[in-house]
């Protein structure tokens, strides 16, 4: 390259660098564009009230997607999260509505609200532990193990109420189990409770991924299980953790949905697992394992949530909504593939 023409490629190089940066931030930019678009098309979109509703919706997806991200990073998949959402709601509904009936003592126990929450979360963790056990001890592939768990959890949810809804979960003063609806509608310092939970969970999970040995181990298991094992990573323990954590996140989502509706229905959470996977993938998580971030996943959940809510506000038919969501997910992955190619081209340009 001659000295005289040095400036032109210089500018080109700069442009290219900016292009790469934009590409790296693509999910964020996509989110931004979608928000702008809807705020023009649907003027109410940016109102405080609407935003709050939006974030509440998104938080549900985000809970599931955060759990899912860890599972995917280890190279696995969890199809049971949606069913666990349903089961968790039903468990909480049963405990509040009917109490725990113990047949041989012919007694019914009603728990205080914190206890109900703990039991529900425990059920979620147990479901995850069951999948994890199948995967680690019995070498069942994650797809199959969690598919089994999906049916088991959904079936159990239906069994708990014979397929009916537990309505009116306000609890009663006499039994001392009031307060459940607050989870869905209450606020802390004016911020809805579910958003607070999302912030805490998001920061916690992000910290876990980046700055704890467990987080490093999760990435290493997904990247190369054998090398991880030889390096002293307790691979089985790591896998148990991610499925249990996914179950835990699902149970949180189940509790919050049931509380928002003040009722629990056994079909709640149907297909949520796919939304969670989509959010994770949109956020840059690689299904091959080893790659992904919590921050990316949360943004991915926002993109899906904003798209859904925005289209509803604009009155797009629900059939078209599905098609559009599908296109967005596929486009995201295609761009992801392109990025690799462009990056190597960037290098050639650099010279």
């Amino acid at each position, binding site marked *: 390259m001659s000295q005289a023409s040095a400036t032109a490629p210089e500018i080109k190089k700069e442009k290219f660098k900016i292009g790469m940066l934009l590409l790296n931030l693509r999910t964020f930019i996509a989110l931004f564009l979608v928000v702008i678009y809807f705020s023009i098309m649907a003027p109410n979109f940016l109102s405080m009230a609407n935003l709050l509703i939006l974030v509440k919706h998104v938080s549900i997806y985000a809970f599931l997607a955060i759990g899912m991200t860890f599972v995917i990073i280890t190279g696995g998949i969890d199809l049971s999260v949606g069913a666990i959402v349903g089961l968790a709601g039903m468990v909480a509904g049963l405990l509040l509505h009917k109490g725990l009936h113990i047949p041989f003592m012919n007694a019914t126990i009603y728990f205080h609200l914190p206890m109900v929450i703990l039991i529900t979360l425990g059920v979620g963790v147990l479901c995850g532990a069951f999948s994890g056990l199948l995967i680690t001890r019995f070498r069942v592939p994650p797809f199959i193990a969690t598919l089994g768990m999906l049916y088991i959890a959904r079936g159990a949810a239906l069994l708990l109420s014979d397929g009916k809804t537990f309505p009116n979960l306000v609890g009663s003063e006499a039994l001392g189990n009031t307060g459940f609806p607050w989870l869905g509608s209450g606020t802390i310092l004016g911020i809805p409770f579910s958003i607070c939970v999302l912030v805490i969970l998001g920061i916690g999970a992000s910290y876990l991924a980046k*700055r704890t040995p467990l987080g490093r181990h999760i*990435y290493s298991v997904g990247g190369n299980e054998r090398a991880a094992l030889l390096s002293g990573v307790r691979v089985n323990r790591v896998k148990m953790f991610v499925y249990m954590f996914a179950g835990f996140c699902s149970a949180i989502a189940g509790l919050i949905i049931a509380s928002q509706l003040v009722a629990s229905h056994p079909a709640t959470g149907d297909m949520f697992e796919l939304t969670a996977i989509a959010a994770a993938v949109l956020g840059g998580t690689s299904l091959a394992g080893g790659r992904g971030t919590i921050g990316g996943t949360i943004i991915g959940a926002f993109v899906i949530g904003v798209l859904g809510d925005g289209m509803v506000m604009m009155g797009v038919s629900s059939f078209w909504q599905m098609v559009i969501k599908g296109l967005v997910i596929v486009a995201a992955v295609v761009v992801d593939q392109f990025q690799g190619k462009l990056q190597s081209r960037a290098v050639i340009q650099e*010279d």
Partner: protein
Amino acid sequence: MTDPSDDIILKACGITKVYPGTLALNRVDFNVYRGKVNVLVGENGAGKSTLTKILAGVEVPTRGHLELEGKQVRIESFHDATRHGIGMIHQELNLFGNMNVAENIFIARELTKGRVHIDHRTQTAKAQELLDRLEAEIDAREQVADLRIGQQQMVEIAKALALNTRILIMDEPTSALSAAEVDVLFRVIQDLKRQGVTIIYISHRLEELIQIGDHITVLRDGNLMQEAPMIEIDVSWIISQMVGTDKNREMTHTTSATCEEILRVKNLSLARTGGGYTLDQLNFCLCKGEILGIYGLMGAGRSELFECLMGLETEIEGKVFLDGKEVTRGRVDDHIREGLSLIPEDRQREGLVQVLDVSDNMTLSSLWKFIKWIHIKSTPLKQAVDQMVRNLSIKVPSPRVIISSLSGGNQQKVVIGKALLTEPKVLLMDEPTRGIDVGAKGDVFGIMNDLAAKGLGIIFVTSELKEIMMVSDRIMVMSNGKITGEFTKETATEEGIVAASAVGHNHTHASA
């Protein structure tokens, strides 16, 4: 010799290759002489693999072009290369563990009947023929995942032979082979040469290059240094061209062995799934500061011994004591904390997590040293990594680059660094010098000496006789899962070691 210019079959002209943050090749001209063994040498990261990958169409040069038979050609994919008759054995193995040997050899060019039906019988027979030619005791129907790495290397060579290429590139084909296997390979190379095949050969074993090569080209830091016919030069010339100075440090190992025992293995046996024993009643001990070399052919049970010591195998009999404490059972991380550390044989499959960066890989075994409750303290971690990068002189722009962008030898150094960061009492090294250059090898041996002087016990497995005789205080030879010979530094002879390693093998191809 005739006029060299019309002897040139393939010519790389002014090749430049840039990777993010690295200038891998800088205007390199490379001549490949027809029907000759063209040797390429250089330190780790000099750009040898990159150059040959460009010749084989795996990488595209940033600038420069290729000339085949005097005409400019574009070789930009595997298929382009195959069309021009160029085949390559890559430095890292490219095999499918889930398929059998024959299927691997004929992958993507399956022998078919009517283009659909795979003719397994012919495929297996042809594959077996190739393997027999390589005198490898491998059944073409075996699953590749069940083979040891040396055997896999043989399969990789057979795969390249099956291509019937006129230019065959071999990137460190011998790094996992024992002396006897190298001899077989060299006979095959001579055969190919007689058939008019041109060979491009990369290796860090310099004696080997002198023995097999006709022409040598030296790269240093991405630049072409020298090109010469092999008859005009010697090992010290190569080294001085490679590293700038003649720092062929003759490894003088001064023993620091004490008589204080650190590791004792008692009646250790490991049953084989098909019956018989992979490890058969092993008894030995290791002292503080001692370097114990283990030599053996493929399948002798060396790597299995290490796996047992690390707690990877559960079905073992016998006992292992570390520093007087029994450590037979337990998980790998328990063993690591007790002070055992393993540098595995196959860095791609067992040593590295390819998607992570250098720092993450290096600290994976020792994170527990850097945590406070559950928090990883990043400052001491970073310091430790930087220190290790310096100590092992790993060539890397920053510890935050992804591991797969490093050259093979530098990746190996990261694996060594990972084991050293755990501060072990006993270090198990399975072919630790595989694919690293003379300078780095010297560094590794230097490090081994230093560690031994600090009182570590080191068990060290290699298939290179010279190395093992140079570095070890004591040499143990294994064959078929048994200890078949033990030598001290004074009593060791090449003949003795080779003879012991062939005990129990009916055909003695180890007569080298």
